[in-house]
């Protein structure tokens, strides 16, 4: 079976000019990442801010070109596709429903835009839009309003309707619930899970919230400073994390269980700088179990019982 998404050794480098007289800094936001997503499944990607997860989302969506490596969507090279073909296949849902919807367009027009771009017009377009607005659980009569008249949860439903109106096979969600209140977050997660099942969607779900990712994903990939340091089936990753960074991330999840106190994550204060990646294992300055060799030898992805991990000590 062809993977819905296959990412092969993809790197993306940003050049950051720091001033007129100083040299540019090169930031390897995504650095040699490979993975595949099975059709109809959901891959969760987790990591701290600056780990490259949003850059990865943009690369998969074709919104940013890769610096090297290649991305196959449905067996075809993403780089060879034109914008229209890509839009029919893969669509985004972004974090902030306040800035991702045009404030001057009516909801109907916002959701219709992808159809318009594909040349679908008239009654057919209206029908598809209305159908999709109902499908994402928006009340009737909302179609003629402006985004400012909607609540955060409703706006995120509009963003989902816009993403799905072309019936794409793949949806990339970048922090889709992070700006929402918990009760609304639960509504949106339930909707996404339902749509995913019903439409057989393949989903990439990016979040810093591990509990949310655990709830919605079949597999989870953990990113650290541009590298994918561990991948495994969700249950395995949460039950038997292999990489010290994954362990630290899981330990820092504050579940609503009183009496457990705040965990000691043991990562120290050294925050990583993506422009200045440490030698050897890039996690070693913060790793609670690092050995001398971790500062020298560079780990490579290793197949382990649960999946793939990139650590010299596993």
């Amino acid at each position, binding site marked *: 079976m062809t993977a819905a998404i296959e990412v092969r050794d993809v790197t993306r480098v940003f050049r950051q000019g720091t001033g007129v007289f100083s040299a540019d800094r090169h930031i390897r936001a995504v650095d040699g990442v490979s993975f595949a997503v099975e059709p109809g499944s959901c891959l969760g990607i987790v990591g*701290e*801010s600056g780990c490259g997860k949003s850059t990865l989302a943009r690369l998969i969506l074709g919104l940013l070109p890769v610096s090297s490596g290649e991305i196959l969507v449905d067996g075809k090279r993403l780089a060879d596709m034109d914008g229209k073909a890509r839009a029919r296949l893969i669509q985004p849902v972004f974090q902030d429903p306040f800035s991702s919807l045009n404030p001057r367009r009516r909801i109907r027009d916002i959701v219709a835009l992808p159809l318009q771009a594909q040349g679908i017009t008239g009654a057919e377009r209206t029908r598809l839009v209305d159908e999709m607005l109902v499908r994402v659980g928006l009340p009737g009569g909302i179609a003629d309003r402006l985004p400012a008249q909607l*609540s*955060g*949860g*409703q706006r995120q439903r509009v963003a989902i309707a816009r993403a799905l109106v072309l019936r794409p096979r793949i949806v990339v969600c970048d922090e889709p619930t992070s700006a929402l*209140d*918990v*009760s*609304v*977050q*639960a*509504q949106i*997660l*339930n909707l996404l*899970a*339902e749509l995913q*099942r019903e439409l057989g969607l393949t989903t990439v779900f990016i979040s*810093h*919230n*591990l*509990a*949310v990712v*655990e*709830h*919605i*994903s*079949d597999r989870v990939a953990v990113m650290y400073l541009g590298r994918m340091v561990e991948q495994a089936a*969700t249950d395995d990753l*949460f039950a038997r994390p292999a990489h010290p960074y994954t362990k*630290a*991330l*899981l*330990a*820092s*999840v*504050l*579940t*609503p*269980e*009183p*009496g*457990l*106190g*705040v*965990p*000691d*994550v043991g*990562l120290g*204060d050294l*925050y990583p700088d993506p422009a200045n990646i440490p030698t050897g294992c890039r996690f070693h300055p913060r790793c609670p179990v690092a050995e001398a060799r971790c500062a020298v030898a560079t780990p490579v992805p290793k197949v382990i019982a649960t999946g793939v991990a990139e650590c010299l000590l596993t």
Partner: protein
Amino acid sequence: MPEALLDVAGLRVRFGRDVEAVRGVSLAVERGQTHCVVGESGCGKSVSALAVMGLLARGATRTATHMRFDGQDITDLSERALQALRGDRMAMIFQEPMTSLNPAYTVGSQMAEVLSRHRGTPKRLGLERAAELLAKVGITAPGLRLGQYPHQLSGGLRQRVMIAMALMCDPELLIADEPTTALDVTVQAQILRLLQGLQRELGLAILLITHDLGVVARIAHKVSVMYAGEVLESASAADLFASPRHPYTQGLLACVPVPGRIRRGDPLGSIPGTVPRIAPGFTGCGFRDRCAFARPDCAGAIAQRDDGLGHRHLCQLAA
């Protein structure tokens, strides 16, 4: 029982004629304890904190039955007297440290200013105190950080600087509004541990505003759940999580995904609808439009229920 350090009763805040953001909030923070106010956006939790500090925007009207800080009623205190109190005996930290630190001054000079304002301490001594506190909040190389500007620091470091700055005058009360919301989970855990450590060491009373029930469960002694400007339920953290009584609290707890608790594929609990905007003169339960158990009498006056052991909730239905 010793008197609480902060004791607020019947706090109300109005914005103009159309919005009543806080409707009769009462809460108390004991010395050396953490009281968490939890709720969704728009429930009035941040406005309540700002009202206590006297930091409301112009155009807001605040009334209260009483608002006592260390026995003294601060409701009608003059702006000058409040200024003397703020940053000295009561300090506040905010969610986004980048917007509350001054980008044009170094960390050291804005920290030293706190002491020179309140105590007239010379800058040199202020800087010494700042360095000492930066070290206390776990910042390595404090000397270097003193000379840096806020934009040169990472989010976690900035939040530590904010905390250190709040501690400059040895406050007795720390009001923290979503102090870890903008931070990564790993850094969040570090900051919360830091706050707990400081509390133990200095006997700080902390009023922590958050939307995150995970944070509440791990750090609170007492919890107040706010909704539409009211405290719907308050109890000790252990009690609240073990036996939530208000339908809203129950619904909120069911919304939070807990790893290993809910099977994938099973829907999360969710509360339909959204938080209403409440105008002055509103009567009845603010949650009734979203409540699965609402009855006609929920539109009337709502009785406060109290189990006599400090667990209170506002609900018409039998517990």
